[in-house]
Every structure is written in C-alpha cells, then in structure tokens.
C-alpha cells in the first residue's frame, strides 16, 4: 500500500516535469531567434541601428560593404586599442562621434560573425536619416517638454519617484550637477553633459536598453518604461542646458567644508562648556614626572 502510493507520487512528479519542460521548449519553437539577432538586440541596439539613423554610434546598415570583416572583428573586440594604435579609420570614427568610447565586447569570432550576418540580412531597406522622434505616450515630443516633465524626470532620477518596474534610482550611481538634485553616486559616469556627448537619442536609447554590463545587470529584470526614459531624457537635456548658463554650486565640497567647520565649532563648544570636567587622574602630573622602568 505504502509502496504503491509512493510509486503514484513519483509518476505524478514525472508527468508534471515533462509537461513543464514542454511548455518552456515550445516558446523556443514558436519564436525562433538567430544567435546574431539575440546578440545585436541585447548589446548593440542601445547605440546602433540598422537603417534607422545614427544614435550614439553610427547606423550599421551595409556595414559589410564599408569595412572588412577582420577590421570589424578587431574593432568590436576593442575599439580603443585600435584608436590608440592610430588606425586612421578608427580615429576618424572616434572623433566623429564626440570621442564616445565604444565598450569592449567579450565575444568570440563566431558570435561576431553571427551579428554581422544578421546586420547584412537586415540591411535591406533604404537608409533613414531622420531618427524616430522621442515621444511620450500622450504624444508630447521632447521639444515640447517643459518644467512639469523636467520635474518628473528629476524625481525619477533622484529616486523621489520610484521606477515602475522597481529598478534602482539613477542617482545611486550617477551624478548630475544641478541645483535641484543632491550630489549623486560616483560609481558611473557624470551625466551633466550626457546630452552634449551622446545626443538626445543616444541618451534615450541607452536608458531604454542599457549596453553597459553593470547597468544592464541592474535593469534587465527591471526595465525602464518608455515614458520614464522620456522623462529622464527630458531632465538630462534640461540639466545639460541649465549648466551651460550658470555653474551650479558644488554640493560635495560644501558638505565637506561645512562638515569640517561644523565639527570644529561643535567640539569647540563642547570643550568650552565642559572644560572643567574631570578628564584624567588628579595625580596625572605627578605620575608623568616619575621615572619608569617598564
């Protein structure tokens, strides 16, 4: 009796496991994706498009006609070492795109070739020079964004307003010099001039699907919604503009100096108030004069 029930239980478990694995595997069959596409959408898409205009980096349409495959592999591996070695093409691109460093990618030759073949496969349409405008779900464009939108963006940046999907606030790693925002983290790049460096579309694109390993890890399970990235881009654009008009106060240094001066004043006051407090043995001066053998 005991044995049969045990056996029944095992059978049930087996059926359930098979069912579960079927469900998961089915999705693979229904939505096939080539390895190149996965890599491109996961990594490259943040900065590059295929025929949809330039973002942070260049549009990669028909890249296979422009550069040799070996050059591309080398560049994707480590663009900076090529720039530093003085490759004319590499330097030209680096300068053209505001000296924005393309992160090194730890990809195998096969993986890079997959990506390139995916790009080749997608390079069918005509080149669109106009980038798609960044629009809020209400239809508001970035150019129409005003104080209201900037404020929401600021709140999202500083964490006053939580990200819908629970991602960490930008301020924990990034700093923006702005009078309305306290100084942020120094773990990642300062974003004060991010829009000047990367362009509005670049910033928006990076926020939407982060290419950087740490940022990617932080947000891959907590995606930033398109409205949120609109607000953040609007805020960063405004912060970039404002900082060009007036140098904001540097809160970090104010904190440091205020801390030092405040501490000195506080200890001075305590020391004055409790100057007469007993601090040592009344025989201290006698003991200090004594010769010591130990």
């Amino acid at each position, binding site marked *: 009796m005991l044995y049969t029930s045990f056996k029944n239980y095992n059978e049930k478990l087996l059926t359930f496991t098979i069912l579960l694995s079927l469900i998961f595997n089915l999705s693979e069959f229904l939505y096939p994706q080539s390895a190149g596409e996965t890599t491109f959408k996961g990594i490259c898409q943040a900065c590059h498009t295929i025929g949809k205009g330039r973002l942070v980096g260049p549009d990669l349409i028909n890249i296979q006609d422009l550069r040799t495959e070996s050059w591309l592999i080398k560049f994707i591996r480590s663009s900076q070492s090529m720039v530093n070695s003085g490759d004319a093409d590499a330097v030209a691109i680096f300068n053209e795109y505001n000296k924005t460093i393309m992160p090194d990618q730890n990809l195998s030759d096969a993986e890079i070739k997959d990506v390139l073949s995916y790009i080749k496969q997608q390079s069918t349409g005509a080149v669109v020079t106009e980038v798609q405008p960044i629009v809020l779900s209400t239809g508001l464009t970035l150019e129409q964004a005003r104080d209201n939108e900037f404020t929401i963006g600021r709140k999202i940046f500083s964490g006053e307003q939580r990200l819908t999907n629970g991602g960490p606030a930008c301020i924990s790693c990034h700093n923006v010099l702005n009078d309305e925002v306290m100084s942020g983290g120094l773990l990642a790049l300062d974003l004060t001039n991010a829009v000047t460096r990367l362009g509005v579309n670049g910033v928006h694109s990076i926020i939407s699907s982060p290419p950087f390993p740490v940022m990617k890890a932080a947000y891959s399970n907590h995606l930033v919604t398109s409205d949120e990235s609109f607000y953040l881009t609007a805020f960063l654009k405004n912060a970039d503009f404002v900082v060009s008009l007036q140098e904001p106060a540097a809160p970090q240094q104010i904190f440091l100096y205020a801390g030092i001066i405040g501490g000195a004043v506080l200890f001075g006051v305590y020391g004055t108030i*409790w100057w*007469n407090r*007993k601090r040592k*043995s009344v*025989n201290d001066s*006698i003991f200090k004069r*004594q010769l010591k053998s*130990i």
Partner: protein
Amino acid sequence: MDVRSQISMVFHLDKCIGCHTCSIACKNIWTDRKGAEYMWWNNVETKPGTGYPSKWEDQTIYRGGWEKNNGSISLKGSGKFKGLANIFHNPYLPVIDDYYEPWTYKYLDLIESPELDDQPVARPVSLITGKPIDIKAGPNWDDDLSGTPDYARNDPNLENLSPAEQEAMFQLEKMAMFYLPRICNHCLNPACVASCPSGAIYKRGEDGIVLINQNVCRAWRMCVTACPYKKSYYNWHTGKSEKCILCYPRLEAGLTPACMHSCVGRIRYLGVMLYDADRIHEAASADDNHLIEKQLDIILDPFDEKVIAAAKANGIADSTLLAAQNSPIYKFVKEWGLALPLHPEFRTLPMLFYVPPLLPVMASLSDAKNGAQNDKLNPIAKRWDDNWLYDTSTEELWGTIEKARFPLQYMANLFGAGDTSKISPILKKMMAVRIHRRSVTVGDLSAEKVNSALTDTGLSPEQADAIYALTSLAKFDERFVIPPAHREQAIEMLESTADEKGSTGFGFKERPARGV
C-alpha cells in the same frame, strides 16, 4: 518627633598614632578579594595631605555631597534629572589612579630562585592586570613621602588659609601633621542613598547602618560620585559597588567592628544615639554657619521622658534606650561638646564625630630676639637668623591656641565648615582638662590658674575628670556600648517569620538506629 536610633562613632584624633592596624583588620576581613584590592573601607590618611582618593575633599573635582539651593538641598553631581542625563557618562568618577593601582610582589621569585651572583628580587606586580608595574602611589602615599609639595601642599583644606599661613605650615622645624582615620560615616542624610538609580542602597531602620544590596546594585556608580567622602567603591570584578558595612554581622553578635576592636591607640568609641528623623531635612538645609548646631540639635537627650516615650512608641527596645543613655558618643558630642563631624558642609549629616587633635597646637612660635645669643657665638659658628622661639610654656592660658603652629583655620576647614569659633572652644576644653589633671597629679600649678581655666571653658572639675577617664582610662565596655541587635524583631519588619517556623533548625528526620 520621629525618634530613631543610630549606631554612632567618635574618633579621638589626639590618640591616633597612624599605625594602620584598623585598615589592615578591615582589609583582612572584608576587602581581601578580587576586584576589592584597591578598596580601603577604613583608611588612615595624613593631614595635611591629599588623602585617598587624591583630593577627595575637593568637590569641584568629584561633585559629591549636597548643595543648598532655594532653601532646600539637591545632590551636586547626580540626583533625579542630573543623574538621568549623565547616567551613561559620569566624568566625575575617581579613576584607579585617583585611588592607586594595587600591587603585590612576586614572592615566589625569592623562594624558588636558583643560586645567582646577585640577590633575587621580588618584582611588584599589579593586582589588576597581573603584570609587573612601577609603583606609582599607595593608599597613604602622603605619609610615606613625608608631605612632599605634591601631596601636603595640594590639600584642599588649605583653601582659606593666607599664603603666609600656608607657607608657615611647611617650614622645616615648624611642620606639623596628624592622622585622620576614615570609615563610612553612616550619615543621617546619605547622598549615596539619594543618588542610587536602582534603589540598591538603604539605611537600616534599627541601627542606621547604610548598606548596598548586592542583588539590586546595577553598577551605575552614582553612589561613588555622590558620596563626598568617597567611601563607596566600585568592585570591577563583581560589577557591584561596595562600602563599609560597620561590621554589622559582628555588631549583631555584640562584637565591635573590626577596625575599632583592633585599634591600638584606643581612639575609637561606638554607641547609640537617638535622633529626630522629622528634622533631618531642616538640619541638612541649614545655613553653612548653623549646620553643626542644627545637626547636634536633632540628636535627642536619651534621658528626656518625652524622648523615651516617643522612642518606645517607635518600637525602639528598652535595651537600646539603655545603651543610648550609656553612650560614650552622646557624652563626647552632646554633653561635653568635644567632637565634631568631618566636613559638615557636605550636608550629609555624618554620624562619625572627631575630637580634633590638640598636640600640634600645644606649642606655639613666639617672637624672640636671637641676636644677643648669636653675638656670643664664635664668628665661624653657624648663625641662626630666625627670630622665633618654639614655645611650650603654659604661662599664657589660651595664647598658644590662637597663635598655634597649626593654623586653627585648617582645623576649621576640616571639622567646622570653615568656622574657627567651632574649634577653639574644643581645644580650650582639652587644654583645661590637661591643666586640671596636671594640678591633680603634679600639683605645680596654682589653684587660681586651674580654676580660671575650668571656668573659662565651662567645665566642672568632675566633668574634667570624666573626660580624662573616658579619654585615657576607658576600658572596652566603656568605649563600646553596643545594644543587643534585636534581629528577631527587625526581621519581622520585613518577613513573616511564622511562615518559616518549624521548617528550619535542628532535628531528626529519622530516628537513629540506636533509638532515642
């Protein structure tokens, strides 16, 4: 009138020889334990000197005792709100260096030493850390160092003395000193009891002994700060505070406290006093110059019928009343007015009284022209340019007291809250007793002089004889009049003894085999 009884003491400083036998007796019985090595519930210090712990009398350092404000009194260092605010940080505590770091010697190094070229040495080791130390101080370092400037001249009691007076005290050949033995005063208005946040300290109802309940003490150490005499000590090993218990287990058995029993100079007296508990607050909050009078006022006459009736109504036993009537303390303090409390200005109403020492003031320094004497000397002889004479004559009756080698003001700072008029009558009385006794035993003084000495001080010849007898001849039972403790009644105040009846004591549970 709320009459209560108090075991009270008198120390006759004229008789103290500073032998520290009392301290050793106390140490051997009570404080020869880990964590208590540095404690001297009984200590003897040299005056002038800084004492133990150093400068304990200087309450600007230690914030002990009470201070008067708005007609009432409050604790100087702790108390309800001040104590709560400072409960985790109390900087006025004495540190171990204010007492001294206790030590012993590595005696085994002497015994177990192999044969060497040099003598083996027993190094001093700390009783706290167990490591070798340089001895920095002891519990009576003032004496051991013979009044160096560091100790004798830092005596807080030199406060109201003029610089010239202070300087005169420390001139070679003019220097004077005496010993001051101290134990817990078992005060009527104890600051330690008032300061304890845990309520661990209490004054025993039947005999007024102040005790710390070791089960309730929570190591806040507020009593260490609050006691102006620094007679509450913190045991760093047990984490409890401890103090002199007046050897209450001995007292209950009819024995004297160990320090008193062992006293070589027989300076110590112990007996019962009756006091009016209703007037304690009034006495403790009196003006500085009335403190002593007010304190002596609340001590009641044990022969007064009203007092006896009130005492009986309060449950004081007849045997205790009899002891109060025979109390040597009552005689010294109230009848003869010879003894004063130590530092009454701390307002704790201490019940240990001191007869101030006469010896250092017996001789005075009078002006003298030594020039004529010097002229007779050989030119190469040492010439003394001092113009004073060490005068021990009794030609002048009281002149020697006023011009004392030991300034009266110093004594007054110790025993009279700074008022010299409290001290000089006592010294005069003691002088008068001496003059009287000299006329009796030696007979070289005129009757006129003796009579004027006695009438000046208001003593009758009989009183003078009684003072002499109790000072010099008193036997054990005259110096210590200890009433039966009546623990059987005292315990009934706290517990219902009938509950225990039949459940303790001797007896046989089973009959022995041999039969009963």
